[in-house]
């Protein structure tokens, strides 16, 4: 799509550009709340930046982009210029993507935080599950851990700040909520997110290429496999 007077592009919100050491830059375009439209542009920018000389990685976050380059091969100012030049006019890349149903065993030992999250939200466990399964989530970014998906689209009533004390180990397959984001644990690792249930779906296999099951832009729906008190 070419932008012209008859098809105005969504205004680009303010952004912040900062250094992540000599060989990386972080472009943060986030406003107060997560924007799907800005995220589509972030994915488009990631693709465009991988074509810039010296740039080795473009890592989409939630309404932000980390660009990694070799500062001995390319002057950082050139990468900055490319970012600032491309961002205002970047085409959204909606990444059509796949839609996958993820079966979840809610509650009980599989979902130790489900009741507390329901109490905090002032609703029943059943209503939490209903709201959690009603939404279609978007894979906004893959990161943190191998194959971990940051999912947008969580019902705002289910949002809850991360635990003050992260758990030392959270098992692979844990279906979680952290702040306004939903996620699934791809490996067993520490996490401060709230655990609602478990899935058997494997999110990462280093023997595959690509190793991660989901790509940014994919859609996920949670479906109830079972509910335990």
């Amino acid at each position: 799509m070419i932008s012209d007077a008859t098809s105005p592009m969504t205004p680009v919100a303010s952004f912040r550009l900062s250094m992540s050491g000599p060989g990386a830059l972080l472009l943060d375009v986030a406003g107060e709340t997560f924007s799907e439209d800005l995220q589509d542009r972030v994915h488009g920018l990631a693709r465009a930046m991988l074509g810039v000389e010296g740039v080795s990685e473009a890592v989409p976050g939630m309404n932000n982009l980390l660009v990694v380059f070799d500062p001995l091969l390319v002057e950082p100012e050139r990468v900055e210029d490319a970012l600032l030049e491309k961002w205002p006019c970047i085409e959204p890349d909606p990444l059509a993507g796949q839609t996958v149903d993820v079966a979840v065993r809610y509650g009980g030992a599989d979902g130790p935080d489900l009741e507390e999250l329901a109490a905090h939200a002032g609703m029943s466990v059943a209503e939490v599950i209903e709201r959690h399964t009603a939404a279609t989530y978007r894979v906004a970014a893959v990161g943190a851990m191998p194959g971990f998906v940051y999912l947008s689209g969580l019902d705002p009533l289910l949002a809850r700040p991360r635990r003050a004390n992260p758990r030392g180990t959270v098992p692979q397959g844990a279906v979680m909520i952290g702040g306004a984001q939903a996620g699934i644990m791809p490996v067993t690792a520490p996490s401060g997110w709230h655990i609602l249930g478990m899935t058997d779906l494997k999110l990462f296999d280093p023997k595959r290429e690509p190793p991660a099951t989901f790509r940014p832009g994919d859609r996920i729906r949670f479906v109830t496999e079972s509910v335990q008190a």
Partner: protein
Amino acid sequence: MIEILSTGLPNTVQDEGRPGYLDAGVSLCGAMDRPALLAANALLNNKPSSAVIEVALFPFRLRFQAEMSFAVTGAVAPATLDGVPLPPWWTGHAKAGQELRIDPPARGARVVVAFAGGIDVPLVLGSRATDAKGGFGGLNGRGLKRGDRLAVGDAPAMRAREFGTVPDWLHEDWQVLRVLPAAEFDAFDADSLDRFFGEEWTVSADANRQGYRLDGGRLVRTTPRELFSHGIVPGTVQVPASGMPIIQLADANTCGGYPKIATVIEADLWKLAQAPVGAKLRFQEVTRAEGIAALRAQRDGLVRLREAVTLARR
């Protein structure tokens, strides 16, 4: 082939790391002391990417099951071959059956042990580095255990020689970490910034290849703002709500959500690799140009080392 006689799980097979998969959540991993890895491989005429053993738990003992050249770099630690002491940053030649022993460092925290031809474990996503969190790479995705046997690749054709090196960067102050300001630098109050640069920080017991938590003053933000998850690089100094900084390192998660006050320049990450629990550190602000110049000087030093080794082994 080499056989591990004494070790602990913090000792792992590492190489230059696994770049290219940050957007799939795969950590960089690789040797914590990258210049020590590159220097050890240079001493042996290995490819820069050849895999080595990173030793962080001592004593470490191994037996050579075949004749081969090896190199020991990184922390300054007592090393012996069949009881005969080796100087630090040294390359030697072992016969089959000889035992290499490395005791706790007098200075530093991590020793690199490299072998001519490099450790031959399968490439996973382009690298032999152990990703302990992901459970892949290295030897079966885990740290080394007693009795493990590691194959060593074919050695480059060269003369067996014994010699050492003392790279320029080892003469720098190991306690001073040069940093660039990061995204939330300006969100910290003036007192906090004074403390960040003015005070000594101590490496806490909560320190491993993922990152180091530091003990010291508390850093306070004047404008707290919840951040969305974003990509981070090794060297990122995060400040969670507790106000105690965490430096993210080689095995760090690829994304984080905590505010970032600064980033340690790549040329100084080896100093963190060599900072044991209890070590005192200081932060010093530099410009991006200075950070790049430091990296260039280090890489130039490694190029000169390779040239010298080529002459010595001719």
